[in-house]
């Protein structure tokens, strides 16, 4: 208690110097928190964007379908798999998909298309497909009077084929058995706009796509949404154990290009923050060393009357730690409202910004323990680290010399 008092009073001894040091600590902390919040925030927005758009947290395929998609690499018991996934407590929802490249025709025009067959009800609760519809309505499995299935088409196709709601779209592709696949589908919805990633996609009911591609009862992809965002790797590993014959990947693998660029960017960010912290700490080191030098006689007396060298060093650590703590408390109090505003309101950007390949028009932060805790830990550890040389210096002061240096 007395030692804490001593540390506290010593901090207030050189008010102006301590204040300047504290300000640089507080400022450095706020800068770090803000920067963390920004990077975490924009990335978690980007992540939730594509996870909800189509990727999900986890995907299941056969073999290396993800890397080299081939129509014959299929999951052959999707029903059994669905039952297993539905029973899993960690899983929010999942959807089944088949994929095939195709050429689409309408009257005299044609356009390349990516056919995706989706389990309509499951897709609705797993991805944002339903929300992306810009005209028409989410389709169902039903055949119309003439025996045609419905389709939802990307705005790009609608534009290049000049096709509209209610029109008949012709698709030609190759079936799993090598046959030529061709059929007519009724356009019931337009998805997204001409800039959307799925502007050339044709969404079909799963059953329709399976029939079209002669791949009855099998699918290419299962996309899973978890209840807990952070569990993707763990749950993917657990599912992989349950499904040894299939390939289970977390989103970090599925979107590896994004993930790697995000990691690299975060590393750059950490480097930048390391630099800020370094500058702050040169100042802190200077303060601490100066205060030790000024008090040579005092430490001499403390040592002479029987304070152990280690205790003297600890006193310096305590002082530095206390100054850092006080500055950080102020830093947290100041940055909390700032980050809260940044997270819930955010900054509207004049020009959209590219975040790992995804365009963002709104900059928002993230309010989390990580954002506040990480720089805190960083600064506390550094502060303690920096007090070591100063503490050693104080501990080594020889009482005889201290007494003689009048």
């Amino acid at each position, binding site marked *: 208690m*007395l*030692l804490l*008092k*001593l540390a506290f*009073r*010593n901090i207030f*001894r050189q008010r102006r110097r301590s204040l300047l040091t504290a300000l640089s600590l507080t400022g450095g902390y706020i800068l770090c928190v803000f920067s963390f919040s920004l990077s975490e925030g924009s990335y978690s927005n980007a992540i939730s964007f594509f996870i909800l758009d189509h990727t999900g947290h986890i995907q299941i395929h056969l073999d290396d379908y993800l890397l080299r998609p081939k129509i014959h690499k299929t999951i052959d018991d999707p029903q059994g798999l669905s039952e297993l996934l539905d029973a899993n407590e960690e899983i929010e929802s999942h959807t089944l998909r088949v994929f095939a490249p195709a050429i689409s025709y309408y009257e005299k025009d044609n356009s390349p298309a990516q056919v995706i067959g989706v389990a309509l009800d499951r897709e609705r609760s797993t991805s944002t497909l339903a929300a992306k519809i810009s005209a028409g309505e989410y389709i169902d499995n039903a055949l119309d009077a003439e025996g045609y299935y419905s389709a939802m088409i990307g705005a790009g196709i609608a534009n290049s084929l000049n096709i509209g709601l209610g029109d008949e779209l012709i698709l030609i592709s190759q079936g799993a058995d090598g046959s030529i696949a061709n059929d007519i589908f009724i356009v019931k919805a337009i998805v997204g706009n001409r800039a959307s990633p799925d502007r050339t996609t044709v969404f079909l009911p799963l059953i329709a796509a399976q029939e079209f591609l002669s791949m009855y009862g099998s699918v290419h992809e299962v996309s899973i949404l978890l209840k807990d965002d952070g569990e993707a790797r763990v749950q993917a590993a657990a599912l992989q154990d349950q499904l040894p014959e299939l390939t289970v990947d977390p989103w970090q693998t599925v979107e590896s290009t994004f993930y790697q660029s995000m990691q690299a960017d975060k590393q750059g960010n950490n480097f930048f923050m390391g630099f800020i912290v370094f500058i702050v700490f040169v100042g802190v080191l200077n303060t601490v060393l100066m205060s030790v030098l000024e008090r040579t*006689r*005092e430490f001499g*007396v*403390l*040592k*002479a*009357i*029987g*304070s*152990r*060298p*280690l*205790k003297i060093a600890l006193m310096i650590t305590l002082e530095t730690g206390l100054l850092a703590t006080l500055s950080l408390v102020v830093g947290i109090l100041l940055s909390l409202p700032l980050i809260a505003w940044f997270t819930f309101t955010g900054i509207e950007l004049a020009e959209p910004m590219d975040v790992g390949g995804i365009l963002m028009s709104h900059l928002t932060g993230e309010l989390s323990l990580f954002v506040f805790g990480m720089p805190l830990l960083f600064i506390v550890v550094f502060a303690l680290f920096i007090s070591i040389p100063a503490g050693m210096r104080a501990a080594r002061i*020889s*009482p*005889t010399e201290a*007494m*003689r240096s009048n």
Partner: protein
Amino acid sequence: MSGVISTTDVCRYFGDDEETMVKAVDRVSIEIERGEFTAIVGPSGSGKTTLLHLLGGLDNPTSGAVELSDTNIAAMSGAVLSDFRRDHIGFIFQSYNLIPVFSAEENIEYIMLLQGVEASERKRRVTDMLKQVGLEGLGNRRPNKLSGGQQQRVAVARAMVSHPEIILADEPTANLDSKTGIALLDLMKELNENHNMTFVFSTHDEKIMSRAGRLIHLHDGEVELDETK
């Protein structure tokens, strides 16, 4: 009476080469008995401070031994030596004795904290010591709100409170006017008599010397004369 502290041929030389070497303390053999009130006197540079530092284990002798309670201090170092000083030796310096950010009470209490004395006992002893050195009611003041004489009294109290075997004081009165200096010395003498506390102090001042029971005269690091009154 028994010997509290003794030195045998203790030397402290500064510098390595023969020509410039300073023999600050040279072959000093003395024995201080319990309850003595001894002054170390001699001209400036005669080695008083150096000898006191050797006696108190603040400095290591070049050769020879310093024994306190049958322990050779010269052979100790680090935390062991720190603890030994804390438990066996009280120090009073010429000036800047006190921690400026501590009140008088806290300055006195600090050493007991190092010793691990219980809080209630610390409080009791602080109150008692303040009374003994005549500073009742001034315990809450910081050193800069105390006069030079009062500060030295706090230093005396701090030196006494840990119940050391011996108190070493290097020119405790040098920064005080002569009246205050004599009053401080009278206080030390009183504590010496009432508690049989052993004091060894250095001084230049004739009036101060006259109050000592024994005078050890140093000259160029050697004991020139050792007189007991």
